[in-house]
């Protein structure tokens, strides 16, 4: 589903990603962990091309982008349709009700007929358990509810892969579970997911693979049991000690 080769990203002089190679199979849930400043969020944003990589190539859902060459804005938009992004700060459109947030992509980008999209949007809102909130504006929703609308908004574009950038980090502790449950349902349904998170319990419950990134490279990867209980690299050990 995803093939990443030699991915590098620099901001001016600072090289944040120093060459990442990775393959992710369809239906797998991959968790990315790492200390702050390690490049894990930049890596995720490269998959959605919110950051344009400096070098390397990414292939998602059969479309390949080679970033060594210049990429046109139209190609970027087309490539982005393979991925759905869920942001740490939700980034819902505040001037649209929940249902309109979910409808926006299919209507404006895919030009699908409104009536059809409304049904689809209602379906996805029900999936994240918010059928009764469809006419609420974001400011009328709790953080957890907003994040679930964010997930529905990304799902409505029917992407091949869902990307989550610390989706529960901005939430009050009692609201974390409702978001993680939605994500777990998605994983069980066979959605391919890449998740940057600090939720170790979620990683253990839902992940097929955990990847530890530090200093812009993949330091260690493995299934959650092995990586959490029996890390091989010193850097992984010291990071896990700090967060547990």
């Amino acid at each position, binding site marked *: 589903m995803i093939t990443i080769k030699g991915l590098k990203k620099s901001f001016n002089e600072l090289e944040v990603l120093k060459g990442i190679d990775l393959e992710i199979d369809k239906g797998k849930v991959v968790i990315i962990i790492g200390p702050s400043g390690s490049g894990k969020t930049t890596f995720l944003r490269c998959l*959605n091309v*919110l950051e344009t990589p400096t070098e390397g190539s990414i292939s998602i859902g059969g479309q390949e982008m080679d970033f060594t060459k210049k990429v046109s*804005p*139209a190609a*970027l*938009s*087309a490539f*982005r*349709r393979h*991925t*759905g*992004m869920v*942001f740490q*700060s939700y*980034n*819902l*459109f*505040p*001037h*649209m009700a929940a249902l309109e947030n979910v409808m*926006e*992509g299919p209507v*404006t*980008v*895919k030009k699908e007929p409104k009536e059809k999209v409304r049904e689809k949007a209602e379906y996805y809102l029900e999936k994240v358990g918010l059928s009764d909130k469809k006419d609420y*504006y*974001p*400011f*009328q929703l709790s953080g957890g509810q907003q994040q679930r609308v964010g997930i529905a*908004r*990304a799902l409505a*574009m029917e992407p091949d892969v869902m990307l989550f950038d610390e989706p529960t980090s901005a939430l009050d502790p009692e609201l974390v579970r409702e978001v993680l449950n939605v994500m777990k349902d998605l994983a069980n349904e066979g959605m391919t997911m890449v998740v940057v998170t600090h939720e170790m319990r979620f990683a253990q419950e839902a992940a097929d693979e955990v990847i530890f990134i530090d200093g812009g490279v993949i330091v260690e990867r493995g299934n959650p049991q092995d990586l959490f209980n029996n890390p091989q690299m010193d850097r992984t050990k010291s990071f896990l000690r700090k967060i547990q």
Partner: protein
Amino acid sequence: MYLNNILADPERMARLVEIAQNSLLPLIQGAIFYTIPLTLISFVFGIGLAILTALARISDVKFLRAVARVYVSAIRGTPLLVQLFILFYGLPTIGIVLDPWPSAIIGFSLNVGAYASEIIRAAILSIPKGQWEAGYSIGMNNRQVLKRIIFPQATRVSIPPLSNTFISLVKDTSLASMILLTEMFRRAQEIATTNYEFLLLYTEAALIYWVICFLLSIAQGRIENRLDRYVSR
């Protein structure tokens, strides 16, 4: 003293009341046929120009940024009256002769365009970066993000300062009297030169400007309420 004299002199009092009554209609006509349309037309063109200028200021193209910057600087750095004089009295020297109406519309539109572009630019920049990213993440291009996500939110932010610009424009149109447009203030001047009641006529004109601006500020409040429906208060 003046007031005492008037109050003590019923004949003069009657004359003033008569002048006020007779001048009210021409002044209001001046407002309806000149001041208000001039304001509306110039504001619409000006806002169009302001949006283009604001987009040029935040674009990636260096040339566009430079052009926009020079335009805003030139308009903000020179008096409006001088700009109108250049258009109406200056341009004929090089063969460009404009009537009062087009001169006034061009002058006021350029003026509004420059000032409002800064308001619109600030409003666009005040929308969090996450809103752009959310738009891109669902596959939108720049145009779609601007139209669907950024402009609707920027409009809300820019209504109070743009109302200021609009209300200033209503009053600034009195400067068009200097380029022979018979708008409300010029009519007041014309009437006053026939009867020498300057205080009365100019006060009357001032009151009409005030009434127009007062009505506008009520409209502003209503628009703000409507656009505030999606933010918590």
